C-alpha cells in the first residue's frame, strides 16, 4: 500500500482551535509536541529545476537536515540519505543516480536557496482501543517573509491527514469526517507537485521567467535608431547586473558567460551609437567596457579550459592522468588570481559609478530629442547599412585568410561576432525564417573559429605552465595535452574552411542581398 495522505487548505475564517476541538470531540486523540521546521527550496538562478518539474528541498527542524529530491514532475519526492548538505554544484556530489539526474537539469549552474518557508506544526494522532496510533494529523501554518525588512506573513494553513499502514478503515473515517466540513478545501490527492512553492512565488512576487538573455524587440522600421540602441544597451546593463553577484561568487561559469556576452553586445551597440551621436562620453564608456572584457578574459578562458581538460581523460593511462595534477593546480591558481583582480574591479566604486552614469545618460536621452539638428536615422536605415557593410568587411577579411595565423582568424571572428550581434539587435526588422538560416550559418562559422581560438589560447596556457615547471612527469603529460590541442586547433581550422565557404558562397550572399534590399537598392 503506498503512502496515503490527503491535505486540506484551512481558510482564514476557520480557527485552528475550533478544528482541533471538533477533532478531539469525535476521536480518541493524542496531542503531540509542537514542532517548528524550515523548508527551503533550492534552484538555480534561472529556475531550471522548477521549470523542469524537479524539486530539491531541505527540511530543517533545528536538529537535523533532510534533503529531498524529485527528478521530474511525475516523480516522487525522495529523501537523499547519504547527503548532509546541499551541494553548490552537481559536480560536487558523489557519482551516482542523483548526481546524474541533477546534472542533466542544472548542468554547470550553482544551486541557491530560492524560497524559504517556516512551518509551525501541531500534530495529533488518533488512537485505537489499544492506544496504538492509527491515523496522523498535521495542522501546518506556513510563514514566508515578503522581503528581508518586512515581518513574516502567513502563506497558507494546511491540514494533512496521513494513513498508518494496515489501518485503512480508521483513516477513511477521519478523512470522511473532514471532507464533510464545508469550510475546508481539499487539495487534489493525486498531485505530486506541492503547490506551496507556487504560492510562495506568487506571494513574494517572484517570476521564474524573470531572467532572460533574449533581446527580442518589437521594432518599427521608422523609429529612431538611437532610441533602439539605447533601449538595447539598457536591457544589456540589466543582464550584467543580474549576473554580477554570481560572477563575484565565481563558482558557476554561466554567470560569467552571460555577463561577458552582455559586455560584448554593449560594446557593439555603443560603437553604433557613437557614429550616430558622436560624444566623448560614449568613447569613455567603450574603453570602460573594453577593459572589463580584458579583465574577465582570463577567468573565462581558464574556466573553459578546465572543463575541456576533463574530456581528455580517455587519452591517458591512469598514471599519466594523475601526472597532470600540477597543470590543474597551476590553472586553478591562475584562475584564483584572475578572479581576485576581477572581483576587485566589480566591487569598486569606479565600476558602480560608470554603470550608474551610463544608465543615467541612456535614460535621460531616451525621453527627448537628442539629434541636435542632425538628420535622424531610422532603425531600418541603420540596420540595412551596417549589416551589409559588416558583411562586406567579413568578405574582405576572408580574402586574406591563412589558417595558421591565429591573429587574423581572431580578428575575423570579432567581425563575425559584431555581425551576429547586430542581426540579433535588429532581427525584428527582417523575415524570421531567412534570418534564422543566416544566423545558423553564422553560428557554424563562429563555432569553428571559436574552437580554433580556444585551442590556440589553451595551448598558450599549457606552454606557460611548462616554461615555469620543473616536474618532468607533469611536463611530459602536459606536452601530450599540447599535442591534442594543436591537433584539435588544426581540425577546427579545416572545418572553418568549409563553413566559411558556405557563408561566402554566392547563394548565401544572394540571400543577404535580398534581405537588405532597401539599402542595397539605394546603393545600386
Amino acid at each position, binding site marked *: 500500500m*503506498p503512502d496515503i495522505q490527503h491535505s486540506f487548505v484551512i481558510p482564514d475564517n476557520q480557527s485552528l482551535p475550533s478544528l482541533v476541538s471538533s477533532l478531539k470531540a469525535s476521536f480518541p486523540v493524542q496531542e503531540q509536541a509542537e514542532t517548528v521546521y524550515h523548508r527551503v527550496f533550492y534552484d538555480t538562478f534561472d529556475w531550471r529545476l522548477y521549470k523542469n518539474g524537479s524539486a530539491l528541498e531541505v527540511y530543517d527542524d533545528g536538529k537535523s537536515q533532510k534533503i529531498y529530491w524529485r527528478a521530474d514532475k511525475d516523480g516522487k519526492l525522495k529523501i537523499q540519505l547519504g547527503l548532509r548538505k546541499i551541494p553548490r554544484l552537481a559536480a560536487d556530489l558523489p557519482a551516482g543516480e542523483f548526481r546524474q539526474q541533477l546534472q542533466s537539469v542544472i548542468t554547470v549552474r550553482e544551486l541557491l536557496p530560492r524560497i524559504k518557508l517556516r512551518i509551525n506544526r501541531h500534530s495529533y494522532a488518533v488512537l485505537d482501543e489499544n492506544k*496504538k496510533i492509527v491515523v496522523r494529523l498535521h495542522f501546518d501554518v506556513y510563514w514566508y517573509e515578503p522581503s528581508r525588512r518586512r515581518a513574516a506573513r502567513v502563506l497558507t494553513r494546511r491540514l494533512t491527514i496521513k494513513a498508518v499502514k494496515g*489501518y485503512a478503515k480508521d483513516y477513511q473515517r477521519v478523512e470522511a469526517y473532514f471532507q464533510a466540513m464545508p469550510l475546508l478545501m481539499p487539495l487534489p490527492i493525486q498531485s505530486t507537485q506541492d503547490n506551496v512553492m507556487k504560492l510562495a512565488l506568487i506571494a513574494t512576487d517572484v517570476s521564474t521567467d524573470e531572467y532572460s538573455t533574449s533581446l527580442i524587440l518589437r521594432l518599427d522600421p521608422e523609429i529612431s535608431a538611437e532610441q533602439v540602441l539605447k533601449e538595447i544597451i539598457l536591457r544589456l546593463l540589466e543582464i550584467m547586473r543580474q549576473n554580477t553577484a554570481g560572477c563575484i561568487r565565481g563558482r558557476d561559469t554561466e554567470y560569467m558567460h552571460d555577463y561577458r556576452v552582455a559586455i560584448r553586445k554593449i560594446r557593439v551597440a555603443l560603437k553604433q551609437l557613437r557614429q550616430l551621436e558622436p560624444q566623448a562620453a560614449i568613447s569613455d564608456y567603450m574603453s570602460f567596457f573594453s577593459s572589463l572584457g580584458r579583465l574577465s578574459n582570463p577567468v573565462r578562458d581558464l574556466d573553459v579550459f578546465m572543463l575541456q581538460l576533463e574530456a581528455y581523460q580517455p587519452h591517458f593511462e591512469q598514471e599519466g592522468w594523475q601526472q597532470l595534477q600540477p597543470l590543474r593546480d597551476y590553472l586553478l591558481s591562475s584562475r584564483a588570481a584572475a578572479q581576485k583582480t576581477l572581483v576587485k574591479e566589480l566591487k569598486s566604486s569606479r565600476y558602480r559609478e560608470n554603470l550608474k552614469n551610463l544608465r543615467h545618460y541612456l535614460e535621460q536621452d531616451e525621453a527627448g530629442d537628442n539629434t541636435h539638428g542632425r538628420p535622424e536615422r531610422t532603425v531600418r536605415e541603420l540596420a540595412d547599412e551596417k549589416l551589409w557593410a559588416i558583411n562586406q568587411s567579413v568578405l574582405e577579411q576572408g580574402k586574406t585568410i591563412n589558417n595558421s595565423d591565429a591573429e587574423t582568424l581572431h580578428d575575423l571572428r570579432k567581425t563575425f561576432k559584431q555581425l551576429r550581434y547586430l542581426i540579433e539587435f535588429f532581427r525584428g526588422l527582417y523575415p524570421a525564417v531567412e534570418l534564422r538560416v543566416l544566423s545558423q550559418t553564422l553560428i557554424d562559422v563562429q563555432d569553428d573559429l571559436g574552437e580554433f581560438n580556444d585551442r590556440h589560447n589553451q595551448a598558450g596556457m599549457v606552454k606557460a605552465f611548462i616554461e615555469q615547471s620543473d616536474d618532468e612527469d607533469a611536463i611530459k603529460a602536459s606536452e601530450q595535452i599540447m599535442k591534442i590541442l594543436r591537433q584539435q586547433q588544426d581540425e577546427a581550422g579545416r572545418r572553418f574552411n568549409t563553413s566559411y565557404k558556405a557563408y561566402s558562397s554566392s547563394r548565401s550572399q544572394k540571400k543577404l542581398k535580398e534581405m537588405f534590399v532597401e539599402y542595397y537598392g539605394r546603393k545600386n
Partner: protein
Amino acid sequence: MKTIAIYNIKGGVGKTATAVNLSFLASLDGANTLLWDLDPQGAASYYFRIKAEIEGGGKKLIDGSTDMEDAVKGTDYENLDLLPADFTYREMDSFLEQTRDPVNRFNKLLKPFSEEYDYIFLDCPPSFSALSECVFAAADILLVPTIPTTLSLRTYQQIIEFFRQQGLDQTKVMPFFVMVDRRKKMHRLIVQHPPSFMSSVIKSDIPYASEVERMGVHRAPLTIFAARSRAARCYTSMWDELRAHIYAMT
C-alpha cells in the same frame, strides 16, 4: 534499499532490542524503514504495540497467497513500518522447503519493498535453519550481537565458518558486542582486544543496562523513553557508524 539482518544462533543476546532501536533510528533520518519480525515469539511486534499475527499465517505469506505489502502495519513512528510476526513462523523452514528454491523465493518476497523502503531490518529467530540461509543470502549486512564471553565468541566463529564453507560473502558479517559489563575483566579484555577472526567488529558496543529490559514495559524504542541513557546513546553511535558504512558501500 539495504537489507540489514540481526542474527545469532544464540537466543537472549539482544537481537530484537537491536532491531527495534536501529530501525527506529533509521526512520528518524527520514529513511523509509521496514522491520520484519521473523521470530515467532513476536517480541518486536509486541514492542511496537502491533498484534503478532498475519492473516492466513506464514505459509500463505511464503507461497504468495497473501500479499506481503498488505500484511505491513505502520508503527507509532513516521517512516517506520512493521511486517508482524506470526506464531506459524515456527514452521517457516517447512514453508520455505516446500518451494522449489527457498533462497530465491525469499529474495522475491523482499523485492516488492525495494522501491518503497530505504532499509529493511530482519529480526531473525535464533537458529541455524533454511530461513537463516535465506537471510544470509538476502542481507547486505548481517549484524551479529555477541556477548563478550568465550562461548559466545565460539558461536560467532561457527557462523563465520559456515559462511566460509558455503562460499558466502563474509564481509557482510558485522559482529558487535552486547550486554557489555565493564566490571567484568573478561568483557573488558575481549571488547578491547577482539580475537582476529572478528575482523569487521563494530566499534560501538551496547552495555548491559536495565533500560533495555524496560523497553518491554514502555513498548517503545529507547530513544522514546530513555533518550539520555547510555544504552540509547550507544545505539545511536552504533547507527551512526553503520550508516557511514552503508554510504561507503554505495
